[in-house]
């Protein structure tokens, strides 16, 4: 039985406490400054013109009318973009296209003007002559030899990516399997739906140094991208300062730099004025990147006792017209494919294919939701074929502490079994359900201790104390609403015997904050948390050293708690931390207490063989759903939902539950309602009326049992939990629908139409 979330981590003063988000009042009272709120003297407004076609040659552009329009300061086309200014993973995407467009979201021109309205009007005055080309919108068709090419200079639409692995011997294992199942699953485009739309404000100082205010989850990598942009513009050795305003939602959408940022830079440079570009909601839907759609072929088998023997998966990913981080999601998909449950023989091949659709990017789970949908649906299908109870089947194959998976993942702490038990207990899987009602379960594994996908997986922290017992900590980590501010404050406060409110977390400015690879891969609590903890430990040591001299006792006898420095066995020897700080400072040869720490986890890059322990530890979870299916309409109602996670330790159960609730609702939308409808490359539902994001009224009651396994490497034992909440949601729902009415839906989202069509087919 899991503990109630109120009883977690009771041995600490600050860690484990349900402390509301530190900036909650600022946000609730409208005081938080988002990109929309940034206003600079002399600021101009930029707008972007997008392509009229999914695939076309640009024959001619005439900007003369726009240039002449009163209030317009600059008009840019692809001709004005320096040759080497390109974005994305393989730099195949200039911020404004020249010669050819390969999706509707391709930028073809941009304007800076004294008002957004004038800029918009000027866009309408730009005359472009296109020559439409045949488009290709189905990635499987795009792989065929005679398919139109999205990029003419390439021989094929298939990207050169290394996603092809074989651990063990899949063919042999298949022959020896008692039961084998094979299926095809598909997922479609969904988008992050950040409540705060994208935007940036760029400005140059008189020495041509760039400051850019922008919504980003990767300040340090964005800093690097913008340095490269300046270099491409001929501005070598200039400085770049990236300032993050308060971010209204990230979910992976801000893991790359985008055309609007580069265009703001180009316009600001040309106009010698600050230039602001902010997306409206339609633009947010049309010109930001989605989660990548997948076609998945899965085959897996087990022996007669239910032990998994092999897993063989092949995927085709719709890359869209350009390449961002979406093309690297197979590196994370590989994790559940090779390591969700014990399976020795694994084959995986993924092809990323250019199409004339929108290009995809990172989104919460980074490929894991797509892979887990196929794996966990297939697990139920296989269990049924083998005649084994689906929970028992998962137990037989569960991951265990001490395992090393075929991919080389080293499983340290592992609470998967406890998570499965918690779901079973809450949803009463053995109970009989009424007609049309069913239960489903699906598990997850995700990186919980960083993810080394870059040369460094590190994060820096600088900590300084004032004369009164307050702390400023400058972290490389990013808070985008997920709660890194609280986590950092609670970790530092616990270590230094202070309160969370004594800690000011600064995370907004590359001029001030140290390097960090980014707020991705559920890594911030673990990596930024360890960086903050490291800095706090160093300062604690300094406090103890100073107190040791003051109290004349050995260092290790000195404790910090309740804002006091004291020796527990000698009540006379006690002082407020503030007083001690002043004693240290205001004396001849005085000192102020500061420390820095850079934490880079001891995890591995996967290398060419795609093997290695990419994370220091892994988070586990199991989700269970009880659904009611209306057999006449195909509509699915979620009656109950349980999402149990092994998080190592809950630093803040309140925020943790928030992350899980949010993840689950996002996952339920993915399972049941959300879909960017794209027809011949064109987005047909660029609004919240037709993009069916769950509303508050659709949200279901979610129970979120927390399993604490106290990870040896995590800060206070914590593991990452940012993404898992939306990873196994869709298969849990799909499995519950099958349990309820006996139809297996293999294509997301599971709409009433799909369910009803399947029921009609089943019932003849």
């Amino acid at each position, binding site marked *: 039985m899991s503990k109630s979330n109120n009883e977690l981590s009771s041995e600490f003063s600050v860690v484990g406490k349900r402390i509301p988000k530190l900036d909650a009042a600022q946000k609730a009272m409208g005081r938080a400054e988002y990109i929309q709120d940034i206003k600079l003297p002399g600021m101009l407004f930029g707008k972007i013109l997008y392509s009229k076609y999914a695939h076309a040659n640009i024959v001619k552009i005439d900007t003369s009318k726009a240039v002449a329009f009163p209030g317009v300061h600059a008009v840019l086309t692809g001709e004005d973009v320096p040759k080497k200014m390109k974005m994305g993973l393989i730099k195949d995407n200039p911020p404004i296209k020249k010669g050819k467009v390969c999706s509707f979201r391709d930028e073809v021109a941009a304007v800076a003007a004294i008002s957004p309205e004038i800029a918009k009007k000027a866009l309408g005055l730009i005359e472009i002559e296109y020559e439409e080309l045949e488009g290709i919108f189905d990635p499987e068709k795009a792989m065929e030899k005679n398919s139109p090419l999205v990029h003419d200079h390439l021989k094929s639409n298939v990207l050169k990516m290394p996603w092809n692995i074989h651990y063990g011997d899949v063919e042999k294992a298949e022959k020896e399997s008692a039961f084998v199942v094979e299926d095809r699953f598909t997922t479609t485009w969904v988008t992050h739906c950040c409540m705060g739309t994208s935007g940036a404000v760029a400005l140059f100082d008189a020495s041509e140094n760039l400051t850019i205010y922008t919504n980003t989850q990767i300040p340090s990598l964005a800093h690097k991208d913008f340095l490269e942009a300046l270099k491409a513009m001929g501005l070598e050795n200039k400085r770049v300062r990236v300032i993050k305003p308060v971010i209204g939602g990230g979910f992976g959408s801000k893991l790359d730099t985008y055309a609007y940022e580069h265009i703001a830079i180009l316009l600001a440079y040309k106009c010698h004025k600050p230039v602001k570009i902010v997306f409206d909601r339609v633009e947010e839907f049309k010109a930001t990147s989605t989660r990548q759609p997948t076609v998945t072929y899965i085959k897996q088998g087990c022996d007669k006792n239910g032990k998994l023997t092999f897993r063989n998966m092949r995927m085709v990913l719709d890359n869209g017209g350009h390449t961002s981080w979406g093309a690297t999601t197979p590196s994370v998909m590989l994790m559940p494919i090779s390591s969700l449950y014990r399976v020795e023989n694994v084959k995986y091949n993924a092809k990323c294919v250019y199409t004339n659709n929108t290009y995809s990017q990172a989104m919460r789970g980074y490929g894991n939701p797509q892979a887990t949908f196929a794996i966990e649906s297939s697990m139920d299908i296989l269990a049924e074929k083998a005649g084994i109870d689906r929970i028992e089947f998962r137990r037989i194959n569960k991951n265990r502490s001490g395992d090393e998976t075929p991919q080389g993942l080293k499983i340290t702490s592992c609470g998967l079994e406890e998570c499965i038990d918690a779901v079973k207990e809450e949803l009463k899987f053995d109970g009989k359900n009424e007609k049309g009602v069913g239960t489903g379960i699906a598990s997850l594994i995700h990186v919980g201790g960083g993810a080394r996908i870059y040369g460094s997986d590190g994060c820096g922290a600088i900590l300084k104390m004032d004369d009164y017992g307050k702390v400023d900590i400058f972290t490389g980590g990013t808070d985008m609403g997920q709660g890194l501010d609280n986590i950092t404050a609670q970790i530092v406060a616990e270590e230094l015997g202070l309160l969370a409110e004594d800690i000011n977390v600064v995370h907004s400015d590359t001029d001030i904050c140290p390097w960090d690879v980014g707020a991705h891969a559920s890594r911030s609590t673990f990596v930024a948390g360890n960086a903050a903890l490291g800095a706090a430990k160093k300062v604690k040591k300094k406090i103890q050293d100073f107190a040791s001299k003051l109290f004349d006792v050995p260092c290790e006898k000195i404790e910090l708690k309740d804002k006091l420095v004291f020796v527990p066995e000698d009540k006379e020897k006690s002082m407020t931390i503030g007083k001690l700080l002043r004693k240290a400072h205001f004396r001849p040869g005085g000192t102020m207490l500061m420390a820095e720490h850079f934490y880079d986890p001891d995890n591995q890059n996967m290398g060419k063989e795609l093997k290695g322990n990419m994370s220091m530890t892994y988070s586990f979870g199991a989700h269970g759903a009880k659904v009611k299916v209306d057999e006449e*309409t195909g509509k699915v109602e979620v009656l109950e939902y349980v999402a149990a996670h092994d998080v190592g330790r809950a630093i803040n159960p309140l925020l943790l539950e928030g992350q899980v609730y949010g993840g689950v609702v996002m996952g339920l939308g993915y399972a049941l309602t959300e879909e960017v409808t794209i027809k011949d490359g064109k987005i047909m539902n660029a609004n919240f009326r037709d993009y069916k994001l*769950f509303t508050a*009224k*659709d949200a279901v009651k979610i129970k979120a049992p927390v399993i604490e396994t106290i990870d040896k490497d995590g800060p206070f034992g914590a593991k990452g939990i940012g993404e898992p909440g939306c990873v196994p949601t869709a298969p849990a729902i799909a499995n519950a629908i099958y349990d309820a009415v006996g139809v297996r839906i293999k294509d997301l989202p599971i709409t009433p*139409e799909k369910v009803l069509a399947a029921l009609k087919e089943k019932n003849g």
Partner: protein
Amino acid sequence: MKAFKYLSPTTVEEAIAFHGRHSETAKYIGGGTDVIVKVKEGWMEPDYLISLKKIEEMSELHKNDATGELSIGAMVTHATLEKSLMIRNEYPIIYDAVSNIGSLQVRNVGTIGGNLINAVPSADGAIPLIALDGVALLHGPDGERSVEVKDLFIAPYKTVLKPREILKKITIPPQEPHTGSAYIKFGRRAAMELPLIGIGVLLTLDDDDTCAKARICLGVAAPTPMRAFDAENFLVGKKIDENILIEAGKIAADESKVRDSIRGKAWHRKEMIRVHVRRMGLKCLNMIKDNY
């Protein structure tokens, strides 16, 4: 967004006069949940918005106990209808429809008249008023005239209203005893949703339980809200049971002019008409039984 002047007349005559003065560049506004969106998006660029909010008689919701006639001012908000116990008890089909429009915030300002005048095929508010044989009272420069709500719509976004004419109120004739009515919005979400299909059913039974009156009204089943006359005629004079309702559902589905759109497929919409005519019909029968 283009700037506009906001006028607040206190009588219908004053509103019409304002509109006359500014003619082409003026637009009436009710709750604003449609008009303001259109202005913000630049789809509509009026110089003057003439608010009907201060015209008191237009916000009145009143049932004449002597005649049994219900009068709903066009400026009555969805929330007012939703919260009225009289509406809930005596006109459940209105309650069903308005209580699921948009969100709480939308219902607090959006008006029943605005919902009709906006004239989208999916207008939830239109269906119950058609089912209840509602009559729209229009007031223009030349005085008043009445139009049955079912004849109000010409095409999507188009009504029979003449320039400067105002929808003042909707009257509902007295209800027969032994009447039940119900509406369902079939959609994907529980709020902020347009119906994929909207189905309203009203049944009146004679003392011997045969159907004296039937109304089957559909939203999103045609370019304008429609009545399924064939299905209605099929029901009248019959003793209603589930099998009869199943048959009526089939007829209504066949009569509908549903089509494929990005929101939903025609075949599924037909199925939903078929299923929900029966379900709403059964709901009506239960209501009638409960009220005996």
